């Protein structure tokens, strides 16, 4: 029996108007991401990988088609409603780690707490941040500032932040793009273990074949179309 999908795209197209005519970043993409699995999305630059990330993360509305998170159709949600869904169910990791240097590592990890409606206390949020840092193997960095830690460690901090709200779906866009090979392997291992360790569905967008091979499933994007679902 097929596992239920944590996220699914049905005939999704994204078209950008440009001075030289419309560009089809995603063209009639239909794909689903089963729960507690890891998927690598590969493709060359300009193949639509990052657009796929922004659509899956509800940061961009598709021009056509439907995006479903579990059983919820999200295509028609307002930006605030989409933010609410993100706050509870989606974690995103970016290539540029996007950590605030004026906050400590644990404060960066608990950034989602500031925007959550749940009345969790700050000390509970702090404990959760420390717990995630421990799961990711960097508990000793909690009180440092992000500019005092290495690139690989920063990306782990970013992953911890993405996991803070216990998302059902974690999307990582070129998470190893700024890292050396050894560090990249460590980060990839961490990411692809998440379905087993925390039960999150992981979607990793990468152009690194070696990283992609470590995922449970691999799909390829060519000129905005899924070539090998």
């Amino acid at each position, binding site marked *: 029996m097929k596992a239920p999908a944590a996220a699914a795209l049905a005939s999704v197209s994204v078209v950008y108007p440009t001075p030289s005519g419309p560009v089809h970043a995603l063209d009639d993409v239909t794909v689903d991401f089963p729960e507690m699995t890891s998927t690598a999305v590969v493709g060359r630059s300009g193949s639509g990988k990052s657009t796929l990330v922004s659509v899956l993360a509800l*940061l961009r509305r598709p021009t056509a088609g439907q995006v479903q998170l579990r059983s919820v159709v999200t295509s028609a949600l307002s930006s605030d409603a989409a933010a609410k869904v993100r706050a509870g169910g989606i974690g995103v990791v970016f290539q540029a780690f996007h950590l605030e240097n004026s906050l400590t590592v644990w404060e960066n990890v608990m950034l989602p707490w500031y925007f959550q409606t749940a009345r969790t206390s700050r000390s509970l949020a702090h404990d959760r941040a420390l717990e995630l840092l421990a799961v990711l193997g960097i508990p000793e960095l909690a009180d440092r500032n992000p500019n005092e830690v290495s690139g690989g460690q920063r990306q782990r901090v970013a992953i911890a932040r993405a996991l803070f709200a216990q998302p059902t779906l974690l999307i990582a866009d070129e998470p190893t793009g700024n890292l050396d090979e050894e560090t990249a392997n460590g980060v990839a291992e961490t990411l692809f273990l998440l379905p087993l360790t925390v039960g999150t569905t992981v979607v990793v967008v990468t152009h690194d074949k070696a990283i992609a091979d470590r995922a449970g499933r691999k799909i390829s994007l060519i000129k905005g179309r899924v070539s090998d679902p």
Partner: protein
Amino acid sequence: MIPRGRIVRLAIQLSWASKLRFVLLTLIAAVAMVVFLVVTELSRLSSEDLKQSISAEAGKTGTYAVDFSSTLGLSPNALRTLVTGVLEPFAPTSSLTMVEILSDVSFDCPPEATLGTQPALIVLHKGLNETRGSISAGTNVCLGGQRVPPAAITVPTDAERLEWLGEGPGSSSSGLVVDDMYQRLVLLSDPNPPNYRFIFVTGRDRDQTFEIEKSLSVRFQTLMKSFGIPATEVPFNVTRIDSAPEIRRAATGVDLVYSLVAWGVLILGALGLLVAEMIVVRDRSWFYGLSRAVGARALEIGSLVLVDILFVLGVGTILTLILAAALQPIAASFVDRTFQIQGVALLRASTFPKLMLGEGLILILAGCYPALRAVRQDPVDVLEPRVL
């Protein structure tokens, strides 16, 4: 609903992270507010002086007199009640004064001729109490052939003479105020019937003589009919008695200039904060985008920017109060030496509502547009610039 304290805490943490920027912005806000306080105080002092001088020389703005040559059979009290009712929509009843005037009253006990014959003024209802001068304690005063104590007679102030008799300061002194206890004696002293004058202040620059006349005519119509007085021959006369509108306009102009300077400084301060906040929003655009990505809604992003400005304004206000208190003696001595004006008080309770209004203006000018920019920022553009 997101607990507001979290957003406030995060905004303050971010604001405090760049301390130099925060200190400089707070200084801009505080200096603008201190200048605002100084100019507002200067404006208050100079316009107060000017208004007092104008009031003494030319009466308060919108001062009217209604003269009754006949009471139409009413007692002075009944007349006052009637007139007060009519004038209520034009002026506060607290400003109304009613004076009984007998034009030729001899105040001397024969054969002396110290006070001579002059108008006697009996105040039947007084809006504001003023301290009048007294006559010499040794003066023999007689009214209607009877001796009265000199303390019963007082000398009207300049403003009262202007309002009650139409005489400006510097004119030959005439008219004495008689205590209302001696009203009957005064009435015996003058064969002519008394006139009644009502004085009131509308405070408005616009001339309302016609409207007041019309209202009085309507109210007195029935009484006049019963006395057989034709509607065209009204027993009263309404006169506007304040003067020098050009000087008043000039004084208003001075006020306006001060206000422009004070508010101009605040607006300049607000523009300074606006420029700084635009830079902050540009630098933090990735953070706002990231916050959107982790679940922040538009309101929370806007709040982060507005709290940043509010934090600067809040600390700026405290700094303003400290600076104003510290500068108080210097400002007082400077204003005294330069403008010969005493009584400077930078921290005056009446100034705080204006200051709060000014801070609201700064918040709107410096906060709204950056907040809107931050809210409208597409998170994809700042998080993944190479989206295509």
